[in-house]
């Protein structure tokens, strides 16, 4: 089959054609020639209207199950949903197993649930760039809520969370050490703390602990930030969605959403700068091997690079 042109892909996005959505995201992910055409033609207003939810937490806390349950609840409201499920690439082979898909399979035949699994592909922040583009492509293809789901507590996950309007951190009883490790980082950026599997022993203690961490945020806007769910039994989901909606309106009305989006766009732009410059610098390093201190060498490379740009 001939490869569709970017025009055809764009037309497909408007028709909400799954094939076109998939191909558009691949084009961006692979940095192919048509990516720019596609991205520049996307419907900006659609992008501003949508809500982007980030869901993260340690493996085993029940993120995918919770995501699947949230999808079901949103589908009951007839919302078209997009999901970007992120898994790490192997640093050795560059490959990845994108396993979160398993729990999304119940929605496989629902054309209003658009899922894309993405690997981090070992780029620094680069994933943020392609995931951001994927969000906009899904928005253009009619998705109203887009969920970015990511494992764990690494740097690339932090980057992705920056793309979200609202971030949910999922924990479950029995993850004591992980929680300690996260207090410094992800907990600060999370808007909600969801204690999943709250029927297990230890849930109440975990909630109390978390209430402490979230007290300031909670006092500011009066929205309850620590919530309990049992995703596998569909418990607590309505409460969670109501809280998300309340916060979403608050963020919208107070201008915080717009502010966050601005910051995210800046961060994403920076990521693209790095991503697009990378090959040129790799080339420059190969052309001119050096044994100086890396910092000094980097400065030299940048200096040379900007001189060349000037000359052109």
């Amino acid at each position: 089959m001939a490869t569709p042109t970017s025009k055809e892909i764009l037309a497909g996005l408007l028709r909400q054609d799954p094939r076109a959505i998939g191909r558009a995201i691949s084009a961006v992910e692979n940095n192919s020639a048509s990516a720019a055409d596609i991205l520049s033609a996307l419907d900006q207003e659609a992008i501003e209207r949508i809500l982007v939810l980030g869901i993260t937490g340690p493996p085993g806390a029940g993120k995918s199950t919770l995501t699947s349950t949230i999808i079901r609840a949103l589908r009951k409201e007839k919302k078209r949903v997009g999901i970007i499920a992120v898994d790490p690439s192997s640093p050795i082979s560059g490959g990845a197993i994108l396993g979160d898909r398993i729990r999304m399979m119940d929605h496989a035949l629902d054309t209003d649930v658009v899922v894309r699994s993405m690997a981090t592909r070992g780029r620094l922040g680069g994933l943020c760039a392609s995931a951001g583009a994927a969000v906009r492509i899904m928005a253009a293809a009619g998705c109203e809520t887009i969920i970015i789901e990511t494992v764990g507590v690494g740097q690339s996950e932090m980057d992705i969370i920056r793309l979200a309007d609202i971030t949910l951190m999922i924990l479950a009883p029995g993850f004591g050490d992980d929680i300690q490790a996260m207090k410094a980082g992800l907990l600060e950026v999370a808007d909600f703390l969801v204690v999943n599997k709250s029927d297990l022993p230890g849930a109440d203690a975990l909630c109390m602990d978390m209430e402490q961490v979230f007290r300031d945020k909670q006092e500011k806007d009066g929205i309850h930030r620590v919530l309990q769910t049992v995703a596998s039994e569909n418990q607590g989901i309505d409460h969670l969605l109501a809280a998300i909606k309340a916060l979403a309106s608050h963020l919208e009305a107070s201008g915080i959403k717009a502010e966050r989006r601005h910051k995210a766009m800046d961060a994403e732009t920076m990521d693209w700068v790095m991503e697009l410059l990378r090959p040129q610098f790799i080339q420059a390093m190969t052309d001119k091997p050096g044994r100086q201190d890396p910092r000094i060498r980097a400065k030299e490379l940048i200096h040379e690079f900007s001189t060349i740009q000037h000359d052109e």
Partner: protein
Amino acid sequence: MTIDKNLDDWQKNELAASLDRFPERREEFTLHGGSEVQRLALPEAIDDDYLEHLGFPGRYPFTRGVQPTMYRGRLWTMRQYAGFSTAAESNKRYRYLLDQGTTGLSVAFDLPTQIGYDSDDPMALGEVGKVGVAIDTLADMETLFSDIPLDKISTSMTINSPAIVLLAMYIVVAEKQGISADQLRGTIQNDVLKEYVARGTYIFPPNPSLRLITDIFQWCNPNMPLFNTISISGYHIREAGSTAAQEVAFTLANGITYVQTALDAGLELDQFARRLAFFFNASSNLLEEVAKFRAARRLWARIMKNRFDAQNPSSMMMRFHTQTAGNTLAAQQIDNNIVRVTLQALAAVLGGTQSLHTNSRDEALSLPTESSVRTALRTQQIIAHESGVADTVDPFAGSYYIEQLTDDIELAAKELIGKIEQAGGVVACIENGFIQRQIEQAAYDYQKEIESGERVIVGVNRFQIDEEEKPELLRVDPKVEDAQIAGLQEIRAERDEDEVQAQLATLKLAAESDSNLMEPILDAVRAYASLGEICSVLREVFGEYRD
């Protein structure tokens, strides 16, 4: 001179000289999972407390077997797992096997039956009658056992999530033969926990599944005292790629969960515990497997006695069925499989199994033909009557190496069970994927060793030949699916529909309450409600589990 001094001397002289001239085949000899195989086991391997660790057969801790005379009294039950296509075809195969001297039936159901779908369900497409017999209603079950007197044989049924329904059908078929439930002997697998981690025929979430299991225990206790109400299975865990120690650990951890659930439901330990049976895999490493069976038996006895405070010795006895390892069968040079099966069957017998299924040579290619099944059965008969291993009890006891390995496997399994409990128990470890990941990693490592040639599989990655000859295979006629569906529709047209709906409604109410489901299911089955219809009612109430 003491052993130590002698050992030192031997190492410096004979051993050093030998290693010098003939280096060993490998730098390190290991078992699957990485533990090292020692060059030479020594008497220090045998614990001095014979009574505590070994004791006598038929007596705690049952390391040497569960009966005092073992196979000198009665040989193990030779039980060949069989079933395919329609109930009528399978009935023919059962009667053939009984004629050939098999002493127990073992029913294989097709996948739609195992997952509670009728043959006309869209999910059943292509699977009807493939890996076992298709059972939709009581009518199929009547055909399956026609002309087989159910009070004379013991029947094992490999059925898990919908076990309660198939058991009900079996009871009603017996009823119609004029045989009461208390005369029925046999086993239902009824082990759902391992389905979530290894075999995949789950329907409901873990908690309602455990309730169904407990309902069966509760009903069978007084009504079916000769029937084993569960067969706690490591077989499939091993097939999925676990190590021997993991097989023991995960199986016993599941066993602990079933016991605890039944106790929590108010059942009396010494009432139900003697009807718990186990099911293990016999793989090709003969010595490791013998040690594994002995270790499992001892560990279970200790758990039942120390942890659950069992009083009756028969509650502490681990009785188990064994099947040779399907995953070791090669599709190349298939006659080699007969030899593999012989070694594996020998391990099961030396390990003290109560019943045994031997795989057939052609099972890596398709369902076994009648002649392959006969050879598999003959393998057991040769071990029983010609090899001499059945004439003395636990012949490997006292082997320095076997005793050492028995201790090692018991310890490794015990530690792993401890880890599972620390992490919240089996159900939590299924939900967070801990058990699945352990098995997956072991399977991956094993396969890597085969791919690299480090682990030799004869005829597969070494000693290959060009094979021209195509073996004769048994194929299930694709028309079976249509015929089965037609039969089901006929039953639906003939039965009293109002009665069916009334029984299903009663069942639903019972499922929503916490009353025992056995009676309402018996009634539904008597009315010819189908397996799929009954399971749909339960799905509605319990929900469905997804990986």
